């Protein structure tokens, strides 16, 4: 019996030794990071819905790498060195990637050789301007304007503008505890829009919330926002 035990122990050790040599690849270690910017200013976007697609051509299997863009327009990804194509799926995001001369489309070529920092210039359909969110007690008032940036054939209509409030500092159309909207057709003066909502009762109680306003476009899923503001009450 002793011998058998010895054999088992030995064989397990051999198997373990053998596995070391072949199974392990280096982890991706080149960091791509940057922001989506318009005229140097990062865009304020949905916190968890906006993705860019990275494709690396040449492999047998085609699979994209989703690169998440956070609510300040910043993104980062750990990648292997290689030549990638970066592509932002239109129609769900409130901005357009400009025409890229290299690819003759809106696809952007990204060459990764070690860490890289790229800010990507995009053009939003609209921007929120001069947003000021104030409160008196539990009533939150937002005053802001909107600027139409794209006015050519690609322009979009405003479906509504909305003020969102959330408990934490992630605020967007899918993370909210209260909201107030105004339909696009009811906006009298795009430079002076007012929205008001009440802070609901919070459990557990807290004395602050976060708020921002967003513009929802017809035919676009995700909104473009103002910067997030903390409201103490």
């Amino acid at each position: 019996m002793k011998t058998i035990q010895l054999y088992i122990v030995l064989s397990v050790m051999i198997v373990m030794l053998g596995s070391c040599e072949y199974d392990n690849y280096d982890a991706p270690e080149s960091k791509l990071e940057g922001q989506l910017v318009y005229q140097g200013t990062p865009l304020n976007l949905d916190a968890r819905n906006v993705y860019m697609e990275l494709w690396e051509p040449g492999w047998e299997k085609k699979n994209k790498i989703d690169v998440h863009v956070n609510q300040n327009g910043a993104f980062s990804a750990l990648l292997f060195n290689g030549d990638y194509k970066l592509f932002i799926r239109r129609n769900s995001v409130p901005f357009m990637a400009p025409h890229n001369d290299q690819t003759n489309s809106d696809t952007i070529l990204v060459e990764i050789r070690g860490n890289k920092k790229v800010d990507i210039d995009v053009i939003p359909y609209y921007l929120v301007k001069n947003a000021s969110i104030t409160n008196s007690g539990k009533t939150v008032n937002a005053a802001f304007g909107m600027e139409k940036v794209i006015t050519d054939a690609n322009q979009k209509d405003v479906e509504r503008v909305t003020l969102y409030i959330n408990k934490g500092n992630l605020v967007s159309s899918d993370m909210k505890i209260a909201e107030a909207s105004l339909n696009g057709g009811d906006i009298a003066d795009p430079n002076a829009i007012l929205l008001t909502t009440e802070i609901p009762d919070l459990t557990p109680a807290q004395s602050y919330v976060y708020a921002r306003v967003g513009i929802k476009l017809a035919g676009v899923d995700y909104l473009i926002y103002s910067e997030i503001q903390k409201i103490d009450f």
Partner: protein
Amino acid sequence: MKKIFILTSILVVMVSWSCNDEAFLNKQPNDLLNDEEVWKNRDLVVLALGDLYNRFPDYQTIENWGEFANFDEAFATRDYGRHQNNDWGFGDWGYWDYSYIRALNSFIKRCAGAAALTEEDRQAFLAEARVLRAAVYFEEVKRMGGVPLILEPLTYDYSGDPTSLQFPRAKESDVYDFVISELDDVKDKLVDPTVGGGRIYSRATKGLVLAMKARAALYAASIAKYGVTTPSEATAGGEAGIPAGMANGYYEKALAAAQELIGTGWYSLYKKNTDLRENFVNLFLDKSNNTEVIFVEDFKLKDKAHGFTTNNQPIDQTEEPGDSGWLNPTLNLVQSFEKLDNTFAPLAIGTPGNYVYYDNITDLYEDRDARLWATVMLPGTQFKGRVVDIWAGYILADNSIITSGALGGQATLPGRSVAEQVVGKNGPIDQVEKSAQTGYYVRKFLDPSIGSGQRGIGSAVWWVRYRYAEVLLNAAEAAFELGQPEVAAGYMNEVRQRAGFTIDLAPGEITFDRIVHERKVELAFEGHQLWDMKRWRLAHKVWDGQNVGLTTNPGKADESSTKPYGLWPYKVYDPGNANDGKWIFKVVVPGKAIGVDRFRLRNYYSEINSDILSRNPKLVQNP
């Protein structure tokens, strides 16, 4: 050591033995029939065809009832996750069943040359398989847009080059055209549904072909017409999206097919009971000479039963402790049922503190469409001969509530000395599984026979895939879109009269909102909602991610409806007051329903899995 030696030698002997035996490896399996054998015998061909019927694609069904709670028509009392997500995945509702298509193609190929069948059988089986294939492509195009049209069983030649098996996606309109022309082609090879004096429900007939054609043409037409509102979802190659110019042609085909079926006289609306509510219940239960039902998946006790009743019966009369009350229809759906004077209105419950008082708990619904009573199990109505006990508690003069946290629980009312029941035996109690958390249970397709609520017995109520009322509504919609409101009104009124409406709609009253609404209430829990909302391009407007409360305008097609609402009845306890013993109602949101539904534009066409794309570079992804 000796033991090891013996064991090793036995192993070696066994291994070497098995390797050498040619006969063993070439042995015919005795639990499988191969292709050749099947096609020698008619009975086996019928079995193979039965298997093809069995694989017929559906989405929401009475076997897959959980999916009914994905949208705003029902709340899932045991699967709260369905109400805690905001978004549907881009791949949701994806369908890419080329193994089924291959099985159908290979059946069609073999059948055409099957020597063992009579010419009559050959033609009939061939036609049935082609109807099934058309149905699968219809399902594909509903979910994915255009898909590769493969009409032959493809074989790989093991050359290492799979190019000969890779086909690009057809245009969305091409797939609809294929479905329509294929159905046209096989129509005359199939039997009448009333052949031989009986009725055929679970196999393809001329009736099914016409009904399916009308539905497919209508879908294509509305995608062409309403797709212009979501231009971003169309691909340049037409794989997704149909040009607007094709809408009228499809509407005409839909109307013609529906009218052809109506003209045959094979079907009529089910009207056996004079009690219209009972009648609409029985429409789905009655299997003997049911003149309305066109095509079903049939069930039979002992052989093939389903658990819809087991899982959705009221908890206080459950025959299977552990299962019940899964689906709770929502107030969103309930309030959509019209008043019998043809008007829409939220239920008349007053406002908090200024309630409307009702003598009987069911009085609130007395002036509503008969279909409401047959689709939803309302508090105070009867099921299996027992009153459905749903009420949330007592309300006192100062508006305070006396209730209990246990189903049918007891408490002592002020001024009384004995504890008594203060909440319904089915709830509603928030967050108590299987209770009626919205205040309602589901009624349509629920089997009233004894034993249907037991896991070991189950229910044999059939799943109705096509029925005559839908054909009438298809005809009405197509006629309306073609600018023939008189024709549309005629078909709509036929369906509405059966639901208890005594005042006909005038042609001028037929609007798009009316059509949308009529389908919603007539066809609730029959698996139509998602496809209807998609083809009208209403899904992103109705499930728009806004949390704005329950609409006060239930007749409007594009009103936001993103959360499941409920309505809880309370009994008034106010001795000496005229309202004592009467009922009031309060709107609630189930505590577990924290999500707000948002249908994103990319949901209109399900994403094609990247594995599928990798295997076939000719495919283009949906937008």
